[in-house]
């Protein structure tokens, strides 16, 4: 049993990593980015292309791909999301949904339907494992992903609470009008936040490609897991996202234990239960789902 729990927690680290950008973008910019999974797959393809064409190993490839993802995030905010956000809360959701379709089909056109993986380019790391006491074997890659997820979430938390730019981003998310009046450039703060979110998406895509396979339409399931982890953890809270990822993974592991086909069902069930409990606590209003439970007003 302890083996399943440990594997589940490690898998939760991966879910937290893919949910990180989604949760960050929602908490800071109030945008639900439905292109999240597709953008992660885009990053995985970029790394695969660099590795197969130019023999750049994926970890080195990140040095090229992550700045590119940051630039994509900046441009996305400036040219797409900022404009669509002016049309109300629903429009950015539709915009990113359309963007997901565009990305998926563009990848399909470029790379075809073949399933790819980054595993062949990282040597033995894709299958190596450590033996922990009690003859439990944990995958090296899984441990690395978990540690990176924790470091990333912790780093983002520190960035938001300790730096001037982080404060400016939080102020903009709370009240863009007043943040302008105290000297914060709200457009810049949002563009920086989008760039940071896309860097985390790029990382998530890299590890998606290393631990499993992907194809042009692999974005949607990734979005689903990210969304479930973010909602279970309480949308908008970074540490909650880690908890959410772990809960989702444990539920999946438990589901698989009950029945060989129960892996996905277990995760969805946990998601629905959390959703139902939240809804009933907020008096069945949708508003309570999206906003943090404790929001003090002046």
């Amino acid at each position: 049993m302890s083996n399943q729990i440990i594997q589940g927690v490690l898998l939760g680290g991966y879910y937290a990593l893919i949910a990180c950008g989604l949760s960050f973008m929602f908490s800071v910019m109030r945008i639900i980015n439905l292109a999240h999974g597709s953008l992660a797959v885009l990053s995985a393809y970029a790394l695969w292309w660099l590795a197969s064409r130019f023999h750049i190993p994926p970890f080195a490839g990140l040095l090229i791909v992550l700045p590119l993802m940051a630039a994509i995030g900046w441009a996305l905010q400036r040219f797409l999301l900022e404009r669509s956000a002016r049309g109300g809360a629903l429009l950015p959701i539709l915009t990113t949904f359309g963007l997901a379709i565009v990305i998926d089909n563009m990848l399909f056109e470029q790379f075809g339907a073949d399933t790819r993986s980054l595993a062949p380019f990282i040597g033995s790391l894709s299958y190596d494992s450590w033996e922990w006491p009690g003859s439990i074997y944990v995958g090296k890659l899984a441990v690395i992903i978990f540690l990176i997820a924790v470091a990333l979430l912790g780093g983002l938390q520190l960035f938001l609470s300790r730096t001037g730019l982080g404060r400016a981003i939080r102020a903009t998310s709370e009240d863009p009008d007043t943040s302008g009046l105290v000297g914060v450039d709200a457009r810049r703060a949002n563009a920086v936040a989008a760039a940071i979110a896309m860097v985390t998406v790029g990382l998530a895509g890299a590890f998606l490609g290393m631990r499993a396979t992907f194809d042009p339409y692999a974005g949607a399931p990734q979005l689903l897991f990210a969304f479930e982890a973010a909602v279970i953890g309480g949308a908008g809270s970074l540490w909650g996202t880690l908890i959410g990822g772990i809960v989702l993974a444990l539920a999946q592991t438990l589901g698989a234990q009950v029945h060989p086909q129960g892996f996905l069902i277990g995760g969805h069930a946990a998601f629905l239960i959390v959703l139902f409990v939240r809804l009933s606590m907020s008096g069945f209003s949708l508003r309570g789902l999206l906003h943090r439970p404790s929001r003090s007003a002046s």
Partner: protein
Amino acid sequence: MSFLAVEDLVVRHGLLQAVRGVTFSVGRGETLALVGANGAGKTTLLRAIAGAHLPSAGRVMLDGADLTGVPSHRRVAMGIALVPEGRKLFVRMSVEENLLLGKTAGRPGDWSVDKVLEMFPNLKPRRHARTGHLSGGEQQATAIGRALMSNPDVLLLDEVSLGLSPLIVDRVYAALQGLINSGTTIILVEQDLNRALSVSDKVICMLEGRVALAADSRSVSRDEVTKAYFGLHRQKAEPA
């Protein structure tokens, strides 16, 4: 010698014309009091000077530079700070974080968190408390401190005494007196006429988006201001 000048300013909220052709100027180091009934356009005028509303006509000039199309965050960098009506603090952040946000524009000057806490000693024990949990007086002190952190040349104060007990209002104005003496240019909106007249050099009374009376605070009588406040001066101009 005008430092801040507003020329024929017109500000609209959709179809509503809140400010209708207002012109006035303030010299460096002067204190101007804006009075007027609710809905007279005082808050809109201050927000337009701070850049939160873009005017549909007219200009705002600071020290000879035209600010009309400049967004609010750049105006902070140019030395205009607003203490907004209702304080508008970031309630999920601490007092210290709110104050530090005021420094974002990066204007040189000697205001610091410690100096603000010295000016408002009641904030000292609340330094790391979320501003959503503060009392009205503590919130107002934080809002004023946040504006001061940008080291402004022009400080715009919108109803800083609103919702505060008389004792706290005295304390806030005692702190403001120090600023007035230090040569900061101040435009303040104040409902208490006696207080408005006693702290200011000039007074402007607004009525329905227009300047009904502009006068010297020392020489103007309470009666004149009251008449302008209620729009009685217009009838007086007609022959009886």
